[in-house]
């Protein structure tokens, strides 16, 4: 479980999130909705153990993330995957992109051997890479150059890249905002599949209907903290907080 307790963060003097507490367990999809710019990305970064909040605690499976050594924290961080809004693939083949996470987790001697093998033209391939690409329906693009992919394909490869090393948790920041309906659908399917495999997924999205579709729980971020968090049905049909109700119904315009 990743647990945030009373987490506050600001950039300079500008407060971004205040007093947020939430948790994520493996095997569930948590959606974070709210208007653009409200701090969803920052929240995700804190969840991914990237950003140290000004205040509050962050725990992974009981360990206080920011109280341990850098090396230990790296090990913790490596159990989490992240997909950004822009696909940011490396200028290499799809295979090289997807296997990146696996490669950096190898020991240096193994990595050296792999490097020498690839120079000699004998590229090894990881099963995990094929499986991850299979999940997003792009197994046939394995050796293609990443730069030649369409936007939707690139984002799917990004997804596969984050999944290949079997993280326990997966953070997705607006993964489908730039995509067409077909690719959006494929990503959403992949998210469900990841959840079914036991991965704890957090999806930040400004499309509340997407959250309604795929999330088990939804948190509503409305500019000064987590207004509410609860099971999807509850949030959408019977929210506790008045602001949530207004946001869901479209009355609250930011």
């Amino acid at each position, binding site marked *: 479980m990743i647990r945030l307790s009373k987490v506050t963060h600001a950039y300079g003097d500008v407060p971004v999130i205040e007093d947020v507490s939430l948790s994520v367990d493996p095997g569930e999809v948590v959606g974070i909705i709210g208007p653009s710019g409200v701090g969803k990305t920052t929240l995700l970064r804190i969840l991914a153990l990237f950003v140290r909040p000004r205040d509050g605690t962050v725990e992974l499976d009981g360990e206080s993330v920011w109280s341990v050594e850098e090396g230990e924290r790296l090990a913790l961080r490596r159990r989490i995957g992240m997909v950004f809004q822009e696909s940011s693939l490396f200028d290499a083949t799809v295979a090289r992109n997807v296997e*990146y996470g696996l490669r*950096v987790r190898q020991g240096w001697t193994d990595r050296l051997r792999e490097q020498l093998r690839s120079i000699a033209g004998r590229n090894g391939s990881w099963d995990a890479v094929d499986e991850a690409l299979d999940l997003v329906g792009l197994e046939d693009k394995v050796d293609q150059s990443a730069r030649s992919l369409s936007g939707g394909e690139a984002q799917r490869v*990004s997804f596969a890249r984050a999944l290949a090393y079997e993280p326990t948790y997966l953070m997705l920041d607006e993964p489908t905002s730039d995509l067409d309906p077909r690719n959006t659908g494929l990503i959403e399917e992949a998210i469900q599949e990841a959840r079914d495999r036991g991965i704890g997924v957090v999806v930040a999205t400004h499309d509340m209907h997407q959250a309604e579709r795929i999330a088990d729980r939804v948190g509503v971020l409305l500019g000064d903290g987590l207004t509410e968090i609860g099971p999807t049905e509850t949030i959408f049909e019977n929210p506790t907080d008045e602001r949530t109700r207004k946001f869901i119904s479209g009355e609250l315009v930011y």
Partner: protein
Amino acid sequence: MSLEAVAQSLPALVDLPFREGYVTSIIYVSLYVSVVAVTLSTLFSIPVALAMGFTDFPGKQFVKSVINTGMGFPSVVVGLLVLFTVSNQGPLGELELIFTREAMIISQFVLATPPITAISLAAITGVSDNVREAARALGGTRLDVALVVIKEARYGIGTAVLAGFGRAISEVGSVLIVGGNITSSQGISKTRTLTTAIQLEARQGQYETAMILGAVLVAIVLVVNGIVVRIGDTGPMDR
């Protein structure tokens, strides 16, 4: 066709007044000194460019102005500075580097580093932050991320290395001063490069011979450029 065969057939083709092995030996010295200098410079410049691009450290502004000044620094002055350093009277006199290839390598290292660093820096900072973030998010250590940046910037870095190589292999004044333009009495080069050989022919008024050596030098530069571009596969032009 091997380099040896080309170099030996060259005199026959153009009737150069050189002894056998002369041209080959000066080509060898030219390449040896330049390649070693550029390799050392690249190994030094890339980490510096990474540091300059992504971190803040005390003296960063100073380093930046040193690099910029170095780009246009008169190479013959570098030669003089290296001479003062490696001469018997200088601080490194003990090492007896004067009139050796090693002194020439030092001199070319100093000359090649500013352009290699500056151009690599431009390429490296051109790598989008998103890519760096992704590399980190996927579990990369700082070293992993640095390697990713280098790979992403590889075309720019290749350009940088070529620029450095071009500066090194074209160098005359400084390698002449610290190297001494020496050959054995059989005409096999010890510290004579194509450029200093050209200078020697020119001072004797043998301009035609100088031009032929010049053509050899240009050919080498073109070949090296071609090889590096080739290694870059399709390159950025195919985007």
